[in-house]
């Protein structure tokens, strides 16, 4: 087994996605199969390799410290389901 139900539950929680029991079962099987496939990468010796996180050979991209126009506040809040005086409104932060 490359991944267990408990791990799937834990990871789904880390990703803040609520899953039903059935979904957890289903996903565990599918993910396990995918990870099994991915395991062929272990055949390779990667110990002396540099990771490629950026495929372009670019560096030192900046912008100058000059003020640009911000969005009109109406544009900022127009898509939200809940607001108050141009602030985004959310339910209480309840710690588990």
């Amino acid at each position, binding site marked *: 087994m490359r991944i267990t139900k408990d791990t799937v539950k834990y990871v789904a929680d*880390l990703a*803040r996605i609520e899953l039903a029991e059935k979904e957890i079962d289903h996903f565990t099987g599918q993910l396990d199969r995918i990870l099994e496939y991915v395991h062929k990468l272990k055949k390779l010796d990667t110990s002396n390799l540099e*990771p490629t*996180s*950026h495929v*372009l050979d*670019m*560096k*030192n*991209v*900046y*912008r*100058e*410290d*000059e*003020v*640009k126009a*911000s*969005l009109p*506040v109406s544009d*900022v*809040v127009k898509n939200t389901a809940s607001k*108050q*005086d*141009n*602030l*985004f*409104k*959310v*339910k*209480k*932060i309840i*710690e*588990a």
Partner: protein
Amino acid sequence: MTYEPVIGLEVHLQLKTKTKVFCGCSTDFGAPPNTQTCPVCLGFPGSLPVLNRQALRLSAKVAIALNCRITKKVRFDRKNYFYPDLPKAYQISQFNQPLSQHGYLPVPAGGKEKRVKIRRVHLEEDTGKLFHQEDFSLIDFNRSGTPLLEIVTEPDIGSPEEAYSYLTALKSILEYIDVSDCNMEEGSLRCDANISIRRAGSKELGVKVEVKNMNSFKAVKIALEYERKRHMALIEDGQDVVQETRLYDSVKNITKSMRSKEETHDYRYFPEPDLSPFDFEASFLEGIKTEIPELPGPKKERFVADYDLSEYDSACLVSDKNMADYFEKAVSLYKKPKEIANWLMGDISAYIKEGDLTIKGLGLKVEHLTGMLKIIDRGVISGKIAKTLLVEMIQTGKDPDLLVRQKGLEQISDEGELVKRIEEVLAENAKIVNDFKSGKENAIMALVGKVMAKTKGKAHPKKLNEILRKKLAT
């Protein structure tokens, strides 16, 4: 069995750039909610970050001033977690290849100087602000994306007092290099602390407690002192210290457990794909080095050597760069550094403190101060009168010579005049004269006081004393 506290401090500093770290929104304080935001700092889908060069420069400046090793290839990483004030659900920060590491800050500790080791200095973005109400919270993203410098020490600080000294010394340097407003009350400087207790001399660390929510340097000292005592009490009672996060309560001066299940965050750091890496060219760093002024430590040493001031006096003067500059300008006009230092650290500092001002905001021209000192030297006024003159100069901004003339502050040195006033006082205060003559030496002070009152403080003190004693002797 003695125990010692082991303290580490994590300071978050808002950098003084005009715009945010990854977008062109203004960083001005106090704007109406969500009026200084754009798709980038709001984390709207499709938005991308572009690094503010000035933020990087200021960060490098701090790193150099704190004697850190600048990383050759600097990279940004994503720190992934969910919280309503974090719009992308990740913060662009630095983990693996931060801006700089392994520095130190010299801090006065127990009469000596200690180099508090700095683990790392790195650049990241600030979050939005949450306003908590009864049943809901409101979010303002104006602050989101402000450049934040994180300065982390090793667990190298040995006491709450030392923590306070560290913060003071740090603030002093930061003000010298002019990178931040450094204001804890306004939030441009924030501090979290870690504390544990261990047997004195041991190399192992005890259980660590994190303390948050302190909004002044003093609060940091109080909170850590409270924690130290709390840990000691637990240990002496045979109990274990629980690893947790506690919040400082500024009303009761205690710390309280956060009472929430401490989530061990798995931040899943990985290299930020939207930002290319940064390779510091030598010329870039050299350029920044030239912008760093003489820092407090070396400046203090120089004051001791060049101006023959005490360590204490020098340290006081250099703690504020503007004060140190003012001092040196004054010395260039009036070559008695000790005199100048006394006035700056005495009456002038008192005035500044009482009015919650700064040396710059005071508006006292250097030439006016030195002018006043020259007037004292000429004997035109006494040191005592000068205190009044100082206040007049500050409040009116006028030249001391002019004020002395306008207010008639010249000392009375004319012997004839003095003799007249002294004779009047002696005549009016026969009892005190008798007291003096019958052996009460101190009675002369009362007589001096009376002459001073009559002359509105302008009697030349030395001359007054000479003539009075002569008169009393007869």
